[in-house]
């Protein structure tokens, strides 16, 4: 398992480098290696998560590094789906770079948890964390497509026509992918919050709202709710939606890092 913990981030870094070479040089010899290296690493990652689940006797969502590695894996699956829809590989560099960052962060800080809090073994908690991870991964992807939208938007507006202009798909496609991922993220976050509140009612016999992470999750949920509302009802497109997605993603990053390392609350379980 320790070996896999090293192989997985190296695999994602290698895939990110290959995708970057493809983005900047269109090298045909590199293109044929992109998907095999990426899928190969995803398979090793799946094996790593399975081994970890079996050896620690819990699904790896009990600590921030565990959550990060599962998010990286979920992002990989979501990106694989997007790549097959878009039929372009030029946005892979950005997703793979973020996945490599998450996985490296996880691999460097992960440790074995000796004892797991029994309240975390509830099936309801499993569904709650599963939905949260899918929601966070979708939001990360949404933010990435928002970022790519802004890069291309300013490239065209500023008449620069750089490598982003040559390699990225159209603004309309990037906007669609951003909105689709944001909608998925919003749906999963809604499920996460509902199940979380039911579960705390059962486990602690009260509703907990004064937890920093819960507050940030509620803010993120509200931001993405506004994104969907603005898009569907007000017809907003492009730039504003992209900025909203990035803001939502930033609040998640704050939730995952700052809150877990500087605050003590019930969401830090060990």
């Amino acid at each position, binding site marked *: 398992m320790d070996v896999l913990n090293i192989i997985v981030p190296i695999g994602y870094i290698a895939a990110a480098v290959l995708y970057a070479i493809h983005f900047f040089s269109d090298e045909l010899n590199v293109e044929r290696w992109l998907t095999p290296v990426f899928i190969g690493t995803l398979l090793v990652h799946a094996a790593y998560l399975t081994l970890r689940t079996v050896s620690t006797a819990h699904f790896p969502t009990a600590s921030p590094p565990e959550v990060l590695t599962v998010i990286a894996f979920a992002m990989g699956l979501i990106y694989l789906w997007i790549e097959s829809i878009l039929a372009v590989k030029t946005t892979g560099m950005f997703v793979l770079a973020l996945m490599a960052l998450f996985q490296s962060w996880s691999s460097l800080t992960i440790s074995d948890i000796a004892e797991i809090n029994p309240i975390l073994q509830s099936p309801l908690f499993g569904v709650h964390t599963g939905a949260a991870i899918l929601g966070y991964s979708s939001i990360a992807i949404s933010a990435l497509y928002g970022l790519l939208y802004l890069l291309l938007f300013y490239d065209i*507006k500023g*008449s620069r026509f750089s490598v982003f202009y*040559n390699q*990225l798909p*159209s*603004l*309309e*496609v990037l906007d669609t992918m951003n909105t689709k991922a944001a909608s998925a993220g919003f749906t999963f976050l809604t499920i996460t919050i509902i199940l979380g509140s039911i579960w705390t009612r059962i486990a602690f016999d009260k509703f907990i709202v004064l937890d920093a992470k819960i507050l940030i999750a509620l803010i993120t949920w509200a931001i993405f709710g506004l994104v969907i509302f603005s898009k569907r009802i007000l017809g907003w497109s*492009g730039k504003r939606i992209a900025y909203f997605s990035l803001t939502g993603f930033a609040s998640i990053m704050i939730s995952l890092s700052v809150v877990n390392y500087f605050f003590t609350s019930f969401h830090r379980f060990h």
Partner: protein
Amino acid sequence: MNAFDIYVLGLNHKTASVEQRECVAVTPPEIGQLLQFIKSSGHWTEVVGLSTCNRTEWYVVGPKNPALLNCLRSLLNIHDRADTWHNPEITYVMKHTDAVKHLFQVASGLDSQILGEPQILGQVKDAFTLATEANTTGTILNNLFQSAFHVGKRVRSETELGAGAVSVSSAAVELANKIFSDLSKRSALLIGAGETGELTARHLKSRDINTLYITNRTFDKAEALAEELDGYALPYDNYAQKIGDVDIIISATNSPEFTVTADAVKKVLPNRHHRPLFLIDIAVPRDIDPQLNKLDNVFVNDIDDLNTIVNKNLDLRRDEIPVAEGIIEEEIDSFADWLKSLEVKPIIASLHRKFEELRRAELEKNRKYFSEEEWEDLDKFTSSLMKKFLHTPMMQLRAAAQNGNGQMKRVEAAYELFDLRNYNDQ
């Protein structure tokens, strides 16, 4: 050594002016006549003629006698009022590997005025079809042109030599495609049906634009273009009404004032519900208020932007030249190998024929000693034995051809050793 050579006699946009190119340009029926005329001269066994706006070239196969090219120049002058083919300053002659390389460069778009343009491969194919229909091609040019088509396809699929828009009008449509993914769901308004406007409208049509409105000061011109492109002509006084409806506006007029003002666009923006509007200004002085680019859902790009895109794409294409040249070198080698294999083809045929005759003669001589069934078995056995005996000498002869002229002594020795002079079918 082959007793023939491949030549190309031609002129193109690099060597001759458009007036000079006009003098030697020929139509397909005229090419057909010239092909027959050249072949019937008896000097050339195979001929293909290629004539486009930028080049007229004649590919011929004939004896290794460069003097005969003067005859070819004279034959071609039948359609040339200015004796252009005898002018060595504007025509070029290449032979053998240089001629092969030149055709491969032409087919791949490396020799085109607009680097990597795709039409030339189709034009080379048409030229070859004309020659095959006139029955003026043979083994050499058939193989050479098939190799050229292969080179053209490889360069197109393995390099970026044909990538990106390299004209202002196609760059405008490429830019529209970077904002809207599918133009078949979009509508466009063309203001000014002049040459550039018309070209852009045609490019939009080729990308299946859903609805195309065309307006022009002279309404008849707008109407004629709209009819041709399946669009709608609008009176010049009324086009402002469509600004709120369309997704793309292209303006290419000589108007000294803005044809699309900031006020006109701002007035319709609330009704557009944040729908992006792409404005392409292909006019000097400019037709579209550049201040509009500051609005979130409005994109304005002018002729300088389009020229920037064209120049960047041309740079990208130039970067691909070494890769394309590499492909051409590979294919020249493979064609040269095939040509060399032709050199030993006669001796291999002679060798096979001589041994087959000997085998048959010996079999016939002894036929009476065998039953019909035994004789058939014997026929198969001796045939197989003969092939095994000849396998090594034949392989050695093929290797001699591949390894170059120094090795050709082996071929001459084989003629002597097996006494093949009477079996030479050349």
